[in-house]
């Protein structure tokens, strides 16, 4: 029987528009993109030219620091654009698909690490400290996979898993050849592919968001100490690995949750990584409204447009009202029954835990210094003083950041704290910048 860890701290925000278990397929898009910004911490080097013909699984980018780590095309076709922005920063590499080009075949018999690096799947490993693309020279003490996402409007992994159980198990088995694998599952998940998964240690987490964050799970199973490295991988990416081992081909098809109050029919959509979002959004949105399309989760994802491309790690696309056309009066005193708050100065405590809210993207207050105490700790289920760590990052005090456990956290772990913060500090941005500075300092 797997070990059960109960988490008390955290917060489940119930939002309207959760995806139903129905899986729809959409037609492919006329262009696919590989966006290097999706792979945090990597220095991209383009290895193709515009006009080159590539197969699905051929490298488009490599990491300047580790050229053996490849970032591959999700489709076969012609490289149509190498898009650069200010100071020639690489924004994306676009590929026009051609169905006649067969995917690249990989030999799955050899060394697992080499295979993963060559096939572009190693790039989906993230390493802690720093929450960046993993360094192949590191010796991770373990690989952590969280099989559930506890954030609102997130993908339900059991919907994705259905029919792909074998690939998932193959993926786990493959990863276990690199380092011991820890699989974190939710108390609500019943699929035997998870509960009795082989070649890994299964731990059950029971509690509100962010219990599904792999960082929280690491902190409870085997916290990271200075000098140690762990790798993490999303559960759907484990399926990618399984598929590769079964077929010898790279298939980056995700089952993406399309969810949010502004989506007409929230559902799951089979899509390739890098596919244009308008293929899934067609007929799903109201054209006249101010909407926010989020590449990823409402708590952690990045605002994009229908012309955007499905981000590499995005397991859902959420659409909520932008709210910048909302003229709400005297917010400091009105009852505001439609709003959600953890504070009892509002009335959401009266409206039951079943009510689903429609929240827009407004910050709903001005940014202040940290005033209230203990706000973050209530929703931060790790043995870390979140408020003090944030202060240390703002102050740029590197020694103190280390002492307070910055190596154990990723920006996403602060998402719920950022949501409840009455001082409206941008915690995820602060943590990301802090981690980047620390990584440069320690390099």
């Amino acid at each position: 029987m797997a070990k059960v860890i109960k988490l008390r701290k955290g917060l489940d925000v119930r939002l309207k528009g959760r995806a139903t278990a129905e899986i729809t397929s959409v037609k492919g898009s006329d262009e696919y993109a590989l966006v290097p910004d999706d792979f945090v911490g990597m220095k991209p080097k383009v290895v193709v030219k515009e006009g080159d013909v590539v197969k699905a699984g051929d490298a488009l980018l490599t990491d300047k620091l580790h050229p053996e780590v490849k970032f591959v095309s999700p489709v076969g076709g012609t490289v149509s654009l190498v898009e650069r922005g200010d100071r020639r920063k690489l924004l994306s590499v676009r590929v026009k698909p051609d169905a006649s080009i067969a995917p690249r075949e990989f030999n799955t018999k050899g060394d697992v690490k080499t295979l993963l690096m060559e096939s572009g799947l190693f790039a989906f490993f993230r390493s802690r400290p720093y929450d960046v693309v993993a360094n192949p020279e590191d010796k991770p003490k373990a690989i952590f996979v969280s099989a559930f996402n506890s954030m609102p409007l997130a993908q339900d992994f059991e919907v994705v898993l259905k029919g792909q159980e074998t690939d998932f198990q193959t993926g786990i088995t493959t990863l276990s050849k690199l380092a011991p694998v820890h699989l974190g599952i939710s108390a609500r998940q019943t699929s035997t592919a998870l509960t009795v998964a082989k070649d890994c240690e299964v731990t059950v987490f029971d509690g509100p968001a962010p219990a599904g964050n792999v960082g929280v799970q690491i902190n409870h199973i085997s916290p990271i100490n200075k000098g140690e490295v762990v790798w993490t991988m999303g559960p759907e990416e484990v399926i990618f690995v399984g598929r590769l081992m079964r077929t010898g081909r790279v298939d980056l098809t995700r089952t993406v949750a399309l969810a949010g109050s502004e989506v007409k029919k929230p559902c799951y959509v089979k899509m390739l990584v890098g596919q244009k979002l308008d293929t899934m959004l067609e007929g799903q949105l109201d054209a006249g409204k101010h909407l926010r399309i989020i590449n990823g989760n409402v708590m952690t994802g990045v605002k994009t447009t229908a012309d955007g491309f499905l981000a590499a790690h995005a397991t859902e696309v959420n659409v909520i009202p932008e709210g910048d056309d909302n003229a709400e009066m005297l917010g400091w005193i009105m009852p505001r029954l439609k709003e959600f708050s953890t504070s009892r100065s509002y009335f959401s405590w009266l409206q039951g835990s079943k009510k689903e809210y429609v929240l827009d993207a407004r910050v709903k207050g001005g940014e202040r210094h940290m005033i209230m105490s203990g706000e973050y700790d209530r929703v931060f289920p790790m043995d870390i003083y979140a408020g003090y760590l944030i202060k240390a990052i703002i102050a740029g005090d590197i020694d103190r950041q280390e002492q307070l456990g910055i190596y154990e956290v990723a920006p996403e772990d602060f998402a719920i704290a950022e949501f409840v913060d009455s001082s409206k500090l941008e915690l995820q941005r602060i943590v990301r910048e802090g981690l980047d500075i620390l990584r440069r300092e320690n390099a």
Partner: protein
Amino acid sequence: MKALRNYLDKIKPNFEEGGKLHAFQSLFDGLETFAFVPRTTGRAGSVNIHDAIDSKRIISFVIIALIPALLFGMYNIGYQNALAAGKLGEATVLGMWWFGFLAVLPKIVVSYAVGLGIEFTVAQWKHEEIQEGFLATGILIPMIVPVTTPLWMLALAVAFSVILAKEIFGGTGMNIFNPALVTRAFLFFSYPSAMTGDNTVWVAGKSLLGAGYDVTGADALSGATPLGQAAQEGFAGFDSSTIMNAIYGLIPGSVGETSVIAIALGALLLLWTGVASWKIMLSVFVGGAATGWLMQAAGLTSIQWYEHLVLGGFAFGAVFMATDPVTSARTEGGKYIYGLLIGLVAVMVRVLNPGYPEGMMLAILLMNLFAPLIDYCFVQRNISRRAKRATNIK
């Protein structure tokens, strides 16, 4: 409402960089965000949705929580005035409240005008948003001074506290000491005769705009606070009516501090909404009660332990001052220690210091100073645990 929104949108460019009214941008921004919830939406890379709570809402609830104590304080001023003048029989409830209102209103106006004036100027100078912290401080200040405090002293003290206790540290959220208590301390040490004096300061002795009564000098002496009486020689203990009056609030004292019932109403609101920490509030009372009991058991005082809790500024300080989230301890365990020590020091000052009957202000200010040290110990425990974990592995 729409018209107002449109009007604000129309005049807004005047206040932005390069507009002719740019010097008043902070003021405009303050009023705009007061009228409408800001429409700014989250940037890419931060969370996309937010809890509806913000610091404006929090401060608003602190002010609402203060209203019962403030309204009762006004009534009590009229009551004490009528009592001192010997006219309690003919005074009406509304008339007594009206007198108190007239006595307190100028203090509130002065406190807000001076404090907010400085805050607006500093915000404009630093190109920051106006921070609403002073809205609570500004109403607290008139509630913790004697009714007879001259307005010029109040203005000077508010300016001192806002500039030297708050703005030089970086404004709301960065201050070490509670600004309202710094105001009180400034007055106390600079103008002791006007703050406690010979116990003539607690009762308003002049009629205002035809309300209230003129009190002759000899009667005014009766206006010592119960703690003031207790500090005098030959004190043998309170009778029960004094304690009941202290619970109702019909005793001389600073404007808002007298009524335990009114303060309790505010405390309920603060605790229910989670604005104030119950850990701090509870532990202040526990610390005070325990120390009071020990002092009495040791034969150092004839004040009962529970009498400490209802007299003077103890309840007001515990509910509204000690719980200020910025200046109190920030770690959950630290909050207990912080609260207990406030209760302990307050009662110790009351009992062991012959010259000064009230200890709450000094206790809270002292613990404001020690709160970071208390937190340091708790945070350091976490740090050591992490460090130990690392060495165990190697």
